[in-house]
């Protein structure tokens, strides 16, 4: 896709960098975490230098993801407040998934689905950070009663699996909606893309023009 001086800026460089720090940390966490989750995934620990290294690194990478996600939260939370139009969007999500966006309400910078994903990820990261701390045996587990460690272990695994599913949907949606990934790679989208997928945002930043 050719870049055009009239392209619209969707993400600034610091926003993109922030996103990719979270993204890279997530990928490393998912690979190392899955290794402990099911024997079938244990070989993934080899990416980290074996099981012991995966065990050592995983929680530290978790801290990186949690902190960088907090930064991202403060960048984007206002843009993700859910409006009545978003609720309508979510009510029609079946049409969207079916590939028919004609009746979808005009989306702002984010559509209802993106906003829902944002808040679900906020919940996931909060739960993972808290439960992860409780099961961080080297430094923190001794501070908690065994019942809480058991509950945190279960919750950490279930929430992590849920988050992996959410991120697959997040990545797929970016691939599916052509012309989207460049927004997170070099920051711009075409005007046509903005008008098609986020028409309210398009009107807002162009003043309704072309």
């Amino acid at each position, binding site marked *: 896709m050719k870049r055009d001086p009239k392209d619209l800026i969707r993400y600034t460089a610091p926003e993109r960098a922030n996103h990719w720090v979270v993204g890279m940390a997530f990928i490393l966490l998912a690979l190392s975490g899955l290794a*402990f989750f099911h*024997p079938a995934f244990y070989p993934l620990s080899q990416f980290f230098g074996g099981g012991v290294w995966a065990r050592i690194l995983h929680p530290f990478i978790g801290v990186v993801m949690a902190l960088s996600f907090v930064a991202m939260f403060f960048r984007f939370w206002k843009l993700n407040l859910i409006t009545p139009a978003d609720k309508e969007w979510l009510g029609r999500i079946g049409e969207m998934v079916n590939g028919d*966006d004609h009746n979808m309400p005009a989306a702002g910078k984010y559509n209802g689905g993106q906003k829902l994903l944002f808040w679900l990820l906020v919940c996931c990261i909060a739960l993972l950070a808290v439960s992860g701390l409780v099961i961080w*045996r080297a430094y923190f587990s001794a501070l908690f009663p065994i019942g809480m460690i058991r509950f945190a272990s279960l919750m950490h695994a*279930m929430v992590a*699996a849920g988050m*992996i599913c959410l991120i697959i949907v997040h990545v*797929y949606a970016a691939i599916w909606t052509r012309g989207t990934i460049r927004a997170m790679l070099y920051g711009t989208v075409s005007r046509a893309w903005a*008008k098609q997928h986020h028409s309210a945002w398009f009107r807002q930043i162009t003043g309704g023009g*072309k």
Partner: protein
Amino acid sequence: MALQSLDIKARSATTTPSPSVRETLEVAKLIDISKCIGCKACQVACMEWNDLRDEIGTNVGVYDNPADLTAKSWTVMRFSEVEVEAGKLEWLIRKDGCMHCADPGCLKACPAPGAIIQYSNGIVDFHEEYCIGCGYCITGCPFNVPRISKTDNKAYKCTLCSDRVGVGLEPACVKTCPTGAITFGAKEDMIHRAEGRVADLKGRGYANAGLYDPQGVGGTHVMYVLQHADKPGLYSGLPKDPSISSMVCLWKGITKPLTSFAIGLVALGSLFHYITKGPNEVSNDIEKEFEE
């Protein structure tokens, strides 16, 4: 310790059968608390045979020494003074350590393949060379036994002297016990022996004497003869009906296949969505609008 490699009943984080063509005799250690005098010879024999020297601790005014199980103290005597009948002091001394459960919570929780082995003779053994130090065994254990070493971050516990048992010897603690409070042999024989002891204790006024072989963990390969089997909690908090926590069962049971399946389903669903519905592209009308 990797002896008895053809006699494996279960192996941690392993979904295929372990080498198990041979069947061996199920063994058990029977600890008769009514015969224990608290001399700690078993503790000494344990550190002697396993060549472990724990830190010298501090006397805090009780007989327990060391105060708790550690990565270097795999068995400790726990002393409790109780009055089950008012005015009749009893000194209950329990030799604590791994119970070698038939359904081991440590093995269920362990994520490292082969780090925990259950031999067909019933011994549950840690293979520290495969241990990754996550501490899930502690999370899974209903008896609070495994300890992670501060020096190497590996988990340690009683091996039931699997290296001695593997060559036909009895565990070191059994060998040394001066009163015969600890005996070792076929589990069947140990149960039979316990029955005799329980009958004897009942005849001497301990109406609730009994064998501690908790079925919630499928029975154990370290069993106790208790004077008060109705109240195991008297013996420094021995759990009454121990079983693997339902949290651990959920975590290591249905959650693993179910969520792995869900992740696969979402990934495949995405691929097939693309193939069936095609990409979500900008419509031709809008595209043309911006072409000049």
